[in-house]
C-alpha cells in the first residue's frame, strides 16, 4: 500500500496514495494506522483525497484505527472524502462515528 506519513509534534498526516481500498489492501491500511498510533501521535489525520472507492473491509480498517486511537486517547480525523466514498460512510451511518473534515488544513490542532 502506498502511504505517505507527514509527522510533526502536533499531528501526523497519513496520506493514502491509493485509488481503491478493498479486501486486498485493507489489512495493510490497518497496520499502517496502528504503526502511526504506536509512534505516539496525539492527532492522526487520515487523508483519503486520492481514494475513489472503499468497501466494507476498508471501512473496517478505518474503524480499527479509530478504536485504537480512542484506546490511546488520540484524536482520529478523516479528510478529503470524495462523493462516492462519503456515500459509503453515509449508507453505513459511519459518518456519525468518525470526525470528518473537508481538508487537512481545516483540522484545528487543539480544538
Amino acid at each position, binding site marked *: 500500500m502506498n502511504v505517505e506519513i507527514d509527522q510533526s509534534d502536533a499531528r501526523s498526516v497519513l496520506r493514502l496514495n491509493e485509488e*481503491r481500498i*478493498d*479486501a*486486498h489492501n485493507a489489512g495493510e491500511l490497518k497496520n499502517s494506522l496502528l504503526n502511526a498510533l504506536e509512534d505516539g501521535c496525539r492527532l492522526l489525520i487520515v487523508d483519503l483525497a486520492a481514494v475513489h*472507492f472503499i*468497501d*466494507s*473491509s476498508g*471501512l*473496517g*480498517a478505518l*474503524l*480499527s484505527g*479509530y*478504536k485504537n486511537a480512542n484506546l490511546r486517547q488520540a484524536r482520529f480525523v478523516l479528510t478529503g472524502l470524495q462523493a*462516492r466514498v462519503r*456515500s*459509503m460512510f453515509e*449508507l*453505513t*451511518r*459511519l459518518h*456519525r*462515528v468518525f470526525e470528518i473534515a473537508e481538508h487537512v488544513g481545516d483540522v484545528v490542532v487543539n480544538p
Partner: protein
Amino acid sequence: MHKNRFTLDLRVPGRTEYLSLVGSIAECVAQRLDHYRGDREALAFHLNVVVTEAVGNAIRHGLSEHQQSRVRLCIEVRGDELIIEVHDRGQGFDLCSLSEACPDDLDEGGRGLFLMRSLMDSVSYRRTRAGNVLEMRKRLR
C-alpha cells in the same frame, strides 16, 4: 453485445488482487445499459461495490484449501432485470443466520452483506451440488 440482454460468465482467480478488475467490469456493465433511465454513474458505483463484496466474501469464506481456487462470476442482463451470481465451492454459510441490520457502529465486520442488501433489490444464497451460489437481483428502472 445486445445491450438489453446479455450474459458475462467469468472465472476469476480466488485472490483479492483481482477485486479491482471485477469491480471495473461491473462498472462497465452499468455504463453499457443505454436503456437505464436512472443515475448510471451511481449504478456503476453500486455494482462495483456489490461485486467487490460478493467476490471478496467468496474468496474469504467460500474457497476450500485443497481446490484450485477460482470464483465464478455471472452478470446477466435480461431486459430490465440485472442478475449477478457468485459461485464458490467452499463450505458456505447460512445467510439466514446473519442479521439484516447494519452492524453496531464500532463493529469492524459485517457490513458487506448489509451493503449488498441495501444496494440491490434482493440477495439470496443457495447450496447446489456444484457449490454455493450468492445471487443478487436488481430491477433496472
